[in-house]
C-alpha cells in the first residue's frame, strides 16, 4: 500500500501512531513492510491456503464473533445433503462436468424447509448453465447482485447441525493447519500464529481489523475466491459494516471504480445491469426478471425501474411502454467478448477496428506479443492518449518488428493517434476507490488538437448520425433515435464545441421527464417511463439540482466521516452495510465502535453516516409470510443487496468455481497441490492455442528443470502502470530509470547473477531482460520441503518514453479467472539467466527452444482437470441439470 497508494497509506501510519498493529503479507519486503510491525513473506499464489489457515484457527478455537455470525451471516443455514466437498472428491466440489469444466451448482444449494426435492424458484434460477455464465462473466450476477437464495432457508442457530454452513465451513478448512500453511505458503508457524493472534484479538465488540488488498489479488486464476476468503474471515470476526473494519480494495486508477459503475465492459450496463444476452434476455421482462429474481429479498427487486430508466435515458421519447422502451435496440451478447478473447480474434482477423482510449495494452495487458500481433492485423486503430505510446507505434518499433514478425511495409493497420485532453483540461467526475465521486473543474484549454473523450465520442456520434440521417434500415434506428443532444460549450466554434459534462451528469443522475426536476435518489425512479436516469446507483449525485460531487466542505468543518466532501454511491453512504455496526437490537456493539444505530424515540436509524438501511425499519421488524423484495428484508438483515440479507460465509450460487474458496495451485507452479489431486482451478478460462502456451504442470517430466522459479510483478511508487503517465514525465522517469529484476542473494549465487549486471527472465511466451538487483528483500522460501526462489519485476517499461526497457507483461500467457475473466498475471514460472536476452529473430528461436524442452510448443498447455477419475465420476453424479453442450476445445 505504501508502494502504490502512498497517500492512502497516511491513514495506516495514522493508525499505527494511535496503536494499531500493522501486518504486511507479501512475497517480498516492500516499502510497506519497512514500516509495518510484521512482514510475512509468502509464496506467490498461496493466499487462500494462508487465509484458510486463519479461518481454520478461528473455527477450531471458537474465536468467531458469535452473535454477529449467527444474526448477520448465513452460518446457520442448512446446506443440501447432496453437497459434497473437495476433501471427498480430490479437490472438486460436487456437480462437476469434466467436459465443459464447469459445475452444476444444484447440489450446493441450501436445503428446503419442506424437504421438497425441488429448489425454490429463486435458487433454481441460476443453477445450470455455468459454462455460459463463465463466458459472459455473469456467474456473480454481473459483479454486484449477490446470490439469489430463497428468502427463508432452514436454519440452526445453535450452529450444531452437521450440514449448517458453520459446520460445513469448519470441515472444509480443517485441513488448513499451521503445518499445512507452512508447507504450502512457506510461512513459518510462528509467523502464521502471530498473524492469527493479532487478527482475532483485535476483532470483536470493542475492536475491528481492516483487511486491505491491492488488486493484484484479482489477477489470479482464483482471484475472486481470494477475496471471498477474506470476506469469510472478516464476517466470522464481525468486521464487516463496521468502522475500522471491512475489506478495502485499493484500486489502481483514478476512476476505475467509475469504469465499473458506469462500465465500459462488455457484460454490464450502468449500475451493474446485465448486458442483454441473446439466449436469456429475449424480452424486456426476461431481462428485468433476471436481475429482479422474483421471490428473493432485497433492493434488486426494483430492477424494473432501474432498467427502464436506463432505456429512457438512451432512447428518450422513442422509448415507450408500447415498444418495451426500445429494449430490442440493445445488441445481444452470446458468449465471451472480453478483451483477451477479442485480442485473439484480432490475430485471427475477425476484428476490423479498435479504439484504445487512454490505455496501452502493448505494455499493460498480459501477453504483450499477442496484443501487438492483434493490433497489427486490424483495418484501423484509433489511439487516444497524451503521449505517443507503444500501442500507437507497434508497427514501427515493437519487439515484433525486431523479431521480424511485424514488417512495417506489410502491416496493413491504419493508425490514428489523437491527442487527448489531460485531467486539468476537462470537467467531469472520477469515482475513487471508496465509491466517492469528485468533480473536477476545467483549469485550462487542452493544447492544440487535444480533446476530451467526451468531445470525441459526442462528435463521433453526431457525425455517424448525420451520415445515417434518412436511413430506412432498421439496424440504424438505435443510432437515429438515440438521445444525443447535449449542450455544447462554445470554445471551438459552434459545431465543434465541447459537450457539457454537467449535463451528462444530470442525465446519469436522472430526472422527472415532465418537469426536468433531478431525482433525489433511485427510490424516485419509476417504471412507467415518467422518469429517466442513466445509472441508478448514481441517482442523487445531482439531488436538488446541485452537483453534489463538487462539494468541498473543508474536513475541518465536518465530522471525520466527511459526508459533505464529494458524493458516494449509493445515497452518499460512506460505509456499506453499516447496519452491521449495531447489534441485532440496533445498539452500537460498543461505544468505541458506535457508527450507526437505531434511535428508539425517533423511530429511525441514525448515526455518523447515512444508514445503509431503510430509515424507519425497526430492528424488530420481521417479514410477513410470503413477502419478497425490500419488504422481505428483516430488521436484522444488514446485507440488503444479498438475496437473503445475510453475509455469505457460504455462497451456493454466484461463483463458477465453488461455494467456498479452496486452495488451488496457480496455473503455472513448481509445486503439486499438497491438498488434492486437482492441481489448479478446474473451471478457469483457458484459450488453448499455439500462440498462447502455458508453462507445464510440475508433474510433467523435466518441467521443474526448464522453468524452476516463480515470478511475480507489481508497481513501483515512482511509476504508473503501463508507463504512459510516468515514463514520459522527467521528474518520475529519472527516479526509476531502468527495468530491473529483483533476486535474492541465494538465487544470484545459484544462477551467477551480478548485482547491476544484466539478466533475463524466460517463459514459454517471451524473454525479457533487466538489470539485476540482488536484495535480501527477496528470500527463498521452504515449500513442501524444497527451496523455492521467487523473482520480482516491475512492469512499467516499453520501448517508448524518456526511459525504456523490456515489458514484463510479455512474460505472461492468457489464462483467466472463471468468474470475472481477469487474467492470471501475478504469478508464473520462469527461468532466470545471466546476461542479456537474444535479439532479432534469435529471440523467438530461444523462447521456442524453452517451450519445446518444456513440451508445450504445440497446443501449449497442461491438463486442467487432474482430480482422480473416480472423483470426477462421483462429482458428476451429483449433477442434476442438463448436460452442457461441449464448448470449443480452444476456448474454455
Amino acid at each position, binding site marked *: 500500500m*505504501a508502494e502504490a497508494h502512498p497517500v492512502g*497509506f497516511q491513514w495506516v501510519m495514522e493508525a499505527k501512531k494511535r496503536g494499531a498493529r500493522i501486518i504486511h503479507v507479501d512475497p517480498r519486503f516492500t516499502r510497506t513492510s*519497512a*514500516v509495518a510491525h510484521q512482514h510475512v513473506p509468502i509464496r506467490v499464489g498461496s493466499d487462500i491456503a494462508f487465509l484458510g489457515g486463519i479461518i481454520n484457527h478461528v473455527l477450531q478455537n471458537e474465536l468467531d464473533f458469535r452473535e454477529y455470525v449467527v444474526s448477520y451471516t448465513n452460518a446457520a443455514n442448512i446446506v443440501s445433503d447432496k453437497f459434497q466437498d473437495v476433501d471427498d472428491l480430490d479437490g472438486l466440489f460436487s456437480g462437476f462436468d469434466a467436459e465443459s469444466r464447469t459445475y452444476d451448482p444444484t447440489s450446493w444449494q441450501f436445503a428446503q424447509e419442506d424437504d421438497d426435492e425441488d429448489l425454490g424458484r429463486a435458487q433454481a434460477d441460476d443453477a445450470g448453465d455455468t459454462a455460459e455464465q463463465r463466458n459472459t462473466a455473469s456467474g456473480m450476477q454481473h459483479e454486484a447482485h449477490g446470490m439469489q437464495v430463497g428468502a427463508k432457508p432452514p436454519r440452526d442457530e445453535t450452529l450444531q447441525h452437521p450440514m449448517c454452513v458453520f459446520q460445513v465451513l469448519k470441515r472444509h478448512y480443517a485441513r488448513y493447519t499451521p503445518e499445512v500453511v507452512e508447507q504450502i505458503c512457506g510461512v513459518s508457524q510462528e509467523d502464521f500464529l502471530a498473524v492469527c493472534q493479532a487478527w482475532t484479538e483485535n476483532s470483536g465488540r470493542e475492536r475491528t481489523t481492516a483487511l486491505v488488498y491491492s488488486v493484484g489479488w484479482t489477477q489470479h486464476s482464483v482471484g475472486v475466491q481470494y477475496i471471498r476468503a477474506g470476506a469469510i474471515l472478516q464476517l466470522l470476526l464481525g468486521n464487516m459494516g463496521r468502522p475500522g473494519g471491512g475489506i478495502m480494495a485499493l484500486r489502481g486508477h483514478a476512476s476505475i471504480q467509475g469504469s465499473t459503475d458506469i462500465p465500459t465492459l462488455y457484460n454490464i450496463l450502468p449500475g451493474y445491469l446485465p448486458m442483454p444476452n441473446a439466449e436469456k434476455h429475449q424480452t424486456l421482462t426476461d431481462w428485468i426478471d433476471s436481475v429482479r429474481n422474483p421471490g428473493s429479498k432485497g433492493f434488486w427487486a426494483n430492477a424494473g425501474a432501474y432498467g427502464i430508466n436506463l432505456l429512457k435515458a438512451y432512447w428518450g421519447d422513442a422509448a415507450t411502454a408500447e415498444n418495451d422502451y426500445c429494449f430490442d435496440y440493445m445488441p445481444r451478447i452470446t458468449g465471451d467478448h472480453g478483451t483477451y478473447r477479442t485480442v485473439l480474434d484480432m490475430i485471427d482477423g475477425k476484428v476490423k477496428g479498435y479504439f484504445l482510449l487512454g490505455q496501452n495494452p502493448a505494455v499493460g495487458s498480459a501477453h504483450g506479443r499477442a496484443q501487438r500481433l492483434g493490433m497489427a492485423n486490424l483495418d484501423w486503430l484509433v489511439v487516444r492518449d497524451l503521449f505517443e505510446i507503444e500501442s500507437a507505434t507497434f508497427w514501427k518499433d515493437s519487439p515484433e518488428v525486431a523479431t521480424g514478425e511485424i514488417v512495417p511495409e506489410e502491416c496493413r493497420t491504419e493508425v490514428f493517434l489523437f491527442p487527448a485532453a489531460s485531467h486539468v483540461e476537462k470537467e467531469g467526475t472520477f469515482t475513487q476507490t471508496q465509491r466517492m465521486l469528485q468533480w473536477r473543474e476545467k483549469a485550462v484549454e487542452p493544447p492544440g488538437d487535444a480533446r476530451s473523450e467526451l468531445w470525441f465520442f459526442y462528435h463521433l456520434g453526431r457525425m455517424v448520425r448525420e451520415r445515417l440521417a434518412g436511413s430506412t434500415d432498421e439496424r440504424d434506428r438505435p443510432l437515429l433515435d438515440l438521445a444525443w443532444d447535449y449542450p455544447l460549450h462554445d470554445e471551438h466554434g459552434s459545431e465543434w464545441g465541447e459537450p457539457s459534462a454537467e449535463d451528462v451528469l444530470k442525465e446519469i443522475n436522472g430526472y422527472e421527464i415532465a418537469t426536468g426536476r433531478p431525482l433525489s435518489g433511485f427510490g424516485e425512479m419509476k417504471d412507467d417511463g415518467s422518469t429517466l436516469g442513466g445509472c441508478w446507483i448514481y441517482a442523487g449525485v445531482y439531488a436538488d439540482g446541485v452537483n453534489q460531487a463538487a462539494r468541498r466542505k473543508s474536513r475541518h468543518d465536518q465530522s471525520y466521516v466527511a459526508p459533505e466532501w464529494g458524493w458516494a454511491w449509493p445515497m452518499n453512504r460512506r460505509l456499506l452495510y453499516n447496519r452491521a455496526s449495531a447489534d441485532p437490537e440496533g445498539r452500537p456493539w460498543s461505544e468505541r465502535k458506535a457508527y450507526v444505530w437505531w434511535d428508539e424515540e425517533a423511530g429511525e436509524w441514525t448515526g455518523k453516516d447515512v444508514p445503509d438501511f431503510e430509515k424507519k425499519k425497526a430492528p424488530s421488524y420481521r417479514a410477513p409470510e410470503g413477502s419478497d423484495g425490500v419488504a422481505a428484508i428483516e430488521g436484522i438483515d444488514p446485507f440488503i443487496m444479498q438475496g437473503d440479507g445475510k453475509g455469505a460465509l457460504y455462497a451456493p450460487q454466484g461463483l463458477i468455481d465453488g461455494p467456498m474458496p479452496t486452495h488451488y495451485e496457480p496455473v503455472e507452479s513448481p509445486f503439486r497441490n499438497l491438498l488434492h489431486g486437482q492441481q489448479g482451478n478446474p473451471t478457469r478460462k483457458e484459450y488453448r492455442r499455439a500462440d498462447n502456451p502455458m508453462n507445464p504442470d510440475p508433474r510433467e517430466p523435466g518441467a521443474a528443470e526448464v522453468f524452476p522459479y516463480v515470478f511475480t510483478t507489481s508497481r513501483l511508487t515512482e511509476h504508473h502502470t503501463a508507463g504512459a503517465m510516468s515514463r514520459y514525465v522527467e521528474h518520475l522517469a529519472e527516479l526509476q530509470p531502468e527495468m530491473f529484476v529483483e533476486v535474492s542473494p541465494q538465487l544470484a549465487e545459484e544462477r551467477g547473477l551480478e548485482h547491476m549486471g544484466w539478466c533475463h527472465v524466460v517463459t514459454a511466451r517471451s524473454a525479457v531482460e533487466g*538489470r539485476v538487483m540482488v536484495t*535480501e528483500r527477496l528470500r527463498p522460501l521452504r515449500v513442501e520441503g524444497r527451496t523455492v526462489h521467487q523473482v520480482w519485476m516491475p512492469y512499467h517499461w516499453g520501448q517508448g518514453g524518456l526511459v525504456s526497457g523490456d515489458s514484463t507483461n510479455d512474460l505472461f500467457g492468457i489464462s483467466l479467472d472463471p468468474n470475472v475473466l481477469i487474467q492470471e498475471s501475478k504469478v508464473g514460472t520462469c527461468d532466470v539467466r545471466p546476461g542479456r536476452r537474444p535479439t532479432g529473430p534469435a529471440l523467438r528461436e530461444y523462447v521456442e527452444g524453452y517451450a519445446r524442452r518444456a513440451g508445450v510448443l504445440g497446443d501449449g498447455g497442461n491438463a486442467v482437470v487432474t482430480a482422480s477419475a473416480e472423483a470426477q465420476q462421483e462429482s458428476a453424479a451429483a449433477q442434476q441439470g442438463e448436460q452442457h453442450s461441449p464448448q470449443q476445445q480452444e476456448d474454455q
Partner: protein
Amino acid sequence: MTGPHSLFGPLDPAPDAGYVDAPSRKGFFTDTSVCIGCKACEVACKEWNDVPENLYEMLGTSYDNSHSLNANQWRHVAFIEQPAGRSSVGLPPSIGDAAPSRDSVDLGMPTLGAAPTDVPDDAKPDFRWLMSSDVCKHCTHAACLDVCPTGSLFRSEFGTVVVQDDICNGCGYCVAACPYGVIDRRRGPEGDPKVGIAQKCTLCYDRLTDNQRPACAQACPTESIQYGDVDELRERASARVATLHEQGVMDARLYGNDPDDGVGGTGAMFLLLDEPEVYGLPPDPVVTTKDLPQMARRAGMAAAAMLAGAAVSFLRRTP
C-alpha cells in the same frame, strides 16, 4: 561564549543578520521512522522550484537513483538495506557497546519474519530497510554564507539560508565550504538559465513569504517531513525520540538538533534509526569558517581602516 555575529555556538540567526522583529526561525524536522521512501518530496521540490532532471541512471543503491544532494537535487531520499546479521562493526567502540542486542529487543521494526522451522538458524535474516529524505541543513552557522563573496547567499528573515540567483557569479567558494556537501553549481541541462549558478534548497523561501509550507513538507504523505518553528520542532523531535525509546526502538536518535554542535544546530534536523554515516551524513559536522575570526584577527585592524576609508569615499560621491 557566543556573542553577536559569532561564527559558532547557539544563536538565533535572523536577528543576528540584522532583521528586526524577525518571524520565528523556520525549519524542517524529518522523522525517518515514518518515511516510506516515496520520493514525493523530491518531485514536489522539483515541480515548485523548477529544478531540472538530475540523472537517468540506475545506481543499484537500493531504490535510490538520485545519488545525493546537488544542484539538481534539493531533496534526496536515501535507501539503506541493512542485511541479515548486521552488527555494529565499524562503529566506534563506545557506540558499539551501547548498541542494543538485535535478538532480545523488539525494535518495533519489521523483520523478514522468522524463517520456516526447517531453515537453519544462520539463514534467518534480520533485515530492515531504512529511508531518509535529506535536505540542506540551513545551519545556524552556515559556512556557505560566510564565504560567499557576492552576497548571493543570504540569511532570510526566517533564519534560512538562500541563494539569490540574480547575484551569484558562480565562484563556487560555497561548494567547498559546506560541511555536508549540499550546495553545488548547476552543470546542466544545457540551456537552463541557472547553469553555473550555486543551487540548493531555499526552504521554499517564496512560499514562506506568504505563509505557505515548503513544497516537500506539503506533499509528504506520512508527515515524515515536518515544517515549522525550529524551537517547536526541536521539542517535537525530542518527544518523538522519547516515544520511540519507550516503544523499544532504542536506535532512534536526533541529528542536528543540538545548538552546541559544530554548526550551532541546524534548521533542518532529523530523527535517525542508525548512525549518521549509515545515511551518508557526516557524524560531527563543523562549520568550516569556525576558526575564521581568529585567523582574521591579525588582519582585522588593517581591514577596518580600509573599510572606513572606502566608506568615506563612497559617501562623498553620494549626492
